[in-house]
């Protein structure tokens, strides 16, 4: 399942707060697509993914925003 979290216009800690909210309900194998405008979210989400042992699949600069894709790999281990 793919969850889209639109945190555009929100500054730290907004994006990561929205991400974790969706992560609580996500299942192993789900993908979470996070849309942000705050550049600090890139390093915040990378740090969170590393610590929580989830996979940071992609960080892509789009037109006026950043798309971050995470695969839930830590649940159900």
């Amino acid at each position: 399942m793919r969850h889209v979290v639109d945190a555009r216009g929100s500054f730290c800690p907004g994006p990561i707060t929205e991400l974790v909210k969706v992560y609580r309900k996500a299942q192993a194998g789900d993908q979470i697509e996070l849309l942000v405008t705050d550049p600090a979210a890139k390093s915040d989400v990378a740090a969170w993914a590393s610590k929580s042992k989830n996979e940071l699949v992609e960080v892509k600069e789009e037109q006026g925003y950043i798309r971050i894709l995470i695969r839930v790999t830590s649940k159900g281990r």
Partner: protein
Amino acid sequence: MIRIAIIGAGTGGTILANALSRGLSDELRTGRAEIVVFEGSESHVYQPGNIDIAFRGSDPRVYRRPPAKLLRRGVKLVEKPASLIDLNNRTVTYNGGEKMSYTYLVVATGSVAAPEIIPGLAEASLNFHRSQEDARKIWEELSTFKRGRIVVLTNLPHKCPPSPVEAVFLIDEMARKRGIRREVEIVYATPYTRAYPAHAIADVVEPEMEKRGITTYTLFNTDYVDPRAKKVYSLEGEELAYDLLIAIPPHRGAELVINSGIGGEEGWIPTDKHTLKIKNHDDAYAIGDATDIPISKSGVVAHLEAITAAESITSQIYGTGKVYLFNGRINCPLEMGGHRAVFVSGTYTREPERQRPSITKYLMKRVFNRLYWTMLSGKLEPIFNTYLGPPYDIR
């Protein structure tokens, strides 16, 4: 007759009602308008005072007053809670079924600390965000605590962003004063990537924590608490043992908002962050903690949004054509112990800047605690405007 209904007489609702009563004084006097405030609580609590109750043993009575004493003459107070808001039919239901129609509505229902959202948290922890009574329990517990590990655990979303860090510093200060600091381990666990969400403020806070021997766990999102084992487990796979757990619980919106179906399952009202109008409604506003605006849930934001909404409503009533747009100003004191503080200041477009903790800023916070009740009346607005400028832009 124009009727402005305000739901909630907390910081935002009270300031708004008083500001409107000044702006619309002619209309109120001649009966062309009325301002009605709905409030079910017997006390208006100055919530930042909970820090002093929990960590300094202050008398809770100093920080509460009856709502009726805080509203200007001409404002009608309905001392019953509203039970339903109907935005489409422009009515408020209260007192077990009575309905009142409105011309303009402002929802200022605040937020609720809800430790029950996280399994085990309510049973295992104390908090100072839910009530004065809860804050008092922390003081009683800390006063007799002799040795062991105190964990301050932050959960999102919550009101008053500086409060977890303030708690940590004041616990450290209290333990030193009692001569037990060597026997007490203080641990701060936060979901943020750093000790404070604004990095410029984290730059100030983190070295101070390190200097005082406070251990910080970042990226710690509570999954559940096991009260028997006295352990907190995080979504990120860490576990944290504690002897005393002081939590900043996750917050949700007011039950009234959830029951009225205007704020989703968590109860945050979709609100335009500049106009403060409830989305898709031209006659209804939301201010303070009740909104879904990505800004800190704090008294200062409730205050400045109330001023902005009051100007907007007055402008709508008089048909001036002016639109007032909130600029997202925050200005929150953060106490660091040792009679020093910083102010976390910024707007939607200006991040908080790094600053040096000072006694002056600490004294400003202490003075404001005293001035709060006067501030609610609106008498200090000319001073705030002179030094800080208005909290809105006009289009």
